[in-house]
Structure formats: C-alpha cells, structure tokens
C-alpha cells in the first residue's frame, strides 16, 4: 500500500523500448497521480519475485520513482524494507566493487558493472512527501544504484567496462 492505495501490477517494458533510454521527470510526491503510480510500481515489484527492484520507466512512466525490497535476497546485508522513493538522489557513494547484474527489462543478458557498495540516498515518500535518507550497502546499494540509472535512461549495457563483460543469463542467481 502507498498512501492508502493498493495499486495494480503493470506490464514490464523490455529493451529496446525508447522509454528505457529517456531521462525521467521529477514528481510531486503528494500528487494523487504520483501516489497511484507509486502504488502500481510496488504492486508490480511484488508480482515480479525474481527482481528486488524496479523503476518507473520499466512500467511505462517517465517519472523519478523507484521501488525496492532486498530483504529476501541472499546477498543482502542492509535492508530498508519494502520502499517506494520519489525523486531519489545519490548523496554519497564509496567502496566500489564489480558485480554481475541482470535487469527485468533485459531478460536474456547479464553484465559486469562497477557499483559503490556503500551509499546514501535522499528522497521523499510518496503520499506524505516526508523526506527520507537511506543508508545502504552491498546488494541493496547495488539495487538502488541500478534503479537510479533507470531514472537517467541508463541500462546495465551502458555501464559495462569492456567487450567481454556481457554475458548470457544462464542462472537465475545472476539477477
């Protein structure tokens, strides 16, 4: 539930859909249509049990909204719980590590991507508009950065360090 709304799961767009390569717009976190979109994003994330995070462009909305819940992932250390964030902004990033990532919008491939393993993110909660600060590490930090990239029109394919860093997805644990 976001702002008292249950939300409706939506279809996840797959690359090369142009929305996935577009920069998104900031939102008013208290606006009813934004709260409704946040609820839909969360409902979609709950349905897609293979991924711990989603961003609004993946469900066809060019808005700065992300949702994540890394509690069940085996590589999680920190977990903020199940959250939807409006206008998230990376405030600090450190301890960079390479890691292999998949993406719900790119079903067949994974890629090696360098990410900070400790981050601080400022955002607002849809509904109340309350400001929040998230301190995340390990898988949760990687997941949040992956979603932030979606808001800037970037896919993991735009982050690979070299020609041999792209892989076919062979195992479900790649995600």
């Amino acid at each position, binding site marked *: 539930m976001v702002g008292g709304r249950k939300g409706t799961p939506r279809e996840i767009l797959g690359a*090369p859909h142009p929305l996935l390569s577009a920069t998104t717009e900031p939102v008013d976190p208290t606006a009813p249509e934004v709260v409704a979109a946040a609820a839909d994003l969360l409902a979609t994330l709950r349905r897609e049990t293979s991924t711990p995070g989603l961003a609004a462009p993946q469900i066809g909305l060019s808005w700065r909204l992300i949702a994540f819940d890394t509690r069940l992932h085996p590589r999680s250390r920190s977990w903020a719980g199940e959250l939807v964030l409006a206008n998230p902004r990376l405030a600090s990033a450190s301890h960079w590590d390479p890691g292999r990532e998949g993406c719900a919008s790119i079903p067949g491939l994974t890629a090696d991507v360098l990410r900070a393993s400790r981050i601080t993110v400022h955002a607002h909660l849809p509904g109340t508009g309350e400001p929040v600060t998230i301190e995340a590490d390990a898988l949760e930090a990687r997941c949040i950065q992956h979603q932030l990239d979606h808001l800037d029109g970037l896919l993991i*394919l735009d982050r690979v360090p*070299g*020609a041999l860093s792209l892989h076919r997805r062979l195992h479900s644990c790649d995600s």
Partner: protein
Amino acid sequence: MGLSAVTVLGVDRPGVIAAVTGSLADCGANIQDSTMTLLGGHVAMMLLVSGDLDSAELLKRLCAPDLVVTASAIEAQRHFCEEGGGLGYVLTVHGPDRPGIISAISAVLAEDGGNITGMSTRLTGRLYVLIADVELPKEVDVAALMRRLAAVGACLDSEITFRPVEPDLL
C-alpha cells in the same frame, strides 16, 4: 618455431575444449593466446599456438573428428597502434535488431583510425547489443567522433554510449 592461428567450430558438448587442447598438446603445440565462446549452441574457439609443426602438419595431426578445424600460418604480430600511443574507449550499442549495425558503427570508427580490439554482440529477443573495446589515435577529435556515432545511432534507432576506459589502478 612456427606460429599458427587455429579455429575450432562445433556443436557444444562437455569435453570439446579438453579434446582440442589435449590433441594440441600431443602435437607439441603451445597455446599462446586463446578465446572461446558459445554462439547459438555452437562452440567457437580461436587459438594462437606455437610449436615445431607447421600449420599444414598441425592440421593433419589434430584429432577432432566432429569439429571444423582450420590452421593458418601467422608470420608476425602486427600492432596498429604504437604501444602507449592510443587511447582506450568502450563503445556500447543497444537497440532493435537489424542488418548493418556493426558495419555502420565500425565504419565511423575506421574513418578516424579507430581500432576495435575486442567485440561481443548478443541478440536476446528483439534487443541487439554490441559492446566493443576501441583504441583511438591520440589526435582524434573525440567530441566530433561521438557526434557522428550519435547520428549513426539515431539512423539505426539505437542508443550508443562511448566513454573512456577507466582502468582500475590497484
């Protein structure tokens, strides 16, 4: 001592690499460089090997009955860019699949003397992905090259990223 380029193609199964490399070892061939990948369920392998046998003799003695193997003599290593004379970049292209993507992109790079030193392409569903390591001569106007790449990308309906390699210095 001769240097040979060996290519191996065949249906993928466990033991293919062991069979090829074992046979090379039996021929006294030393593997200097190699790469292998799977292409649509087929194993594709390329090796540079050195040894006493010339390419023709090596091909004759290689035991790989269910594989397509070629061997060619290599005269010398060629360097298109002087050591330390080039700048490394990573090019990524992704968009809807269509014929001509590689040729269009590589032609733009070639106009400026850009050398593709590694490349992988993958097709998954409708999505076509190309990742390439590119070495550019130092004198290239990179901003102008990026504008030309962007224009070609727009014609191909594809997104193109071109950025300097940032090596990890540990």
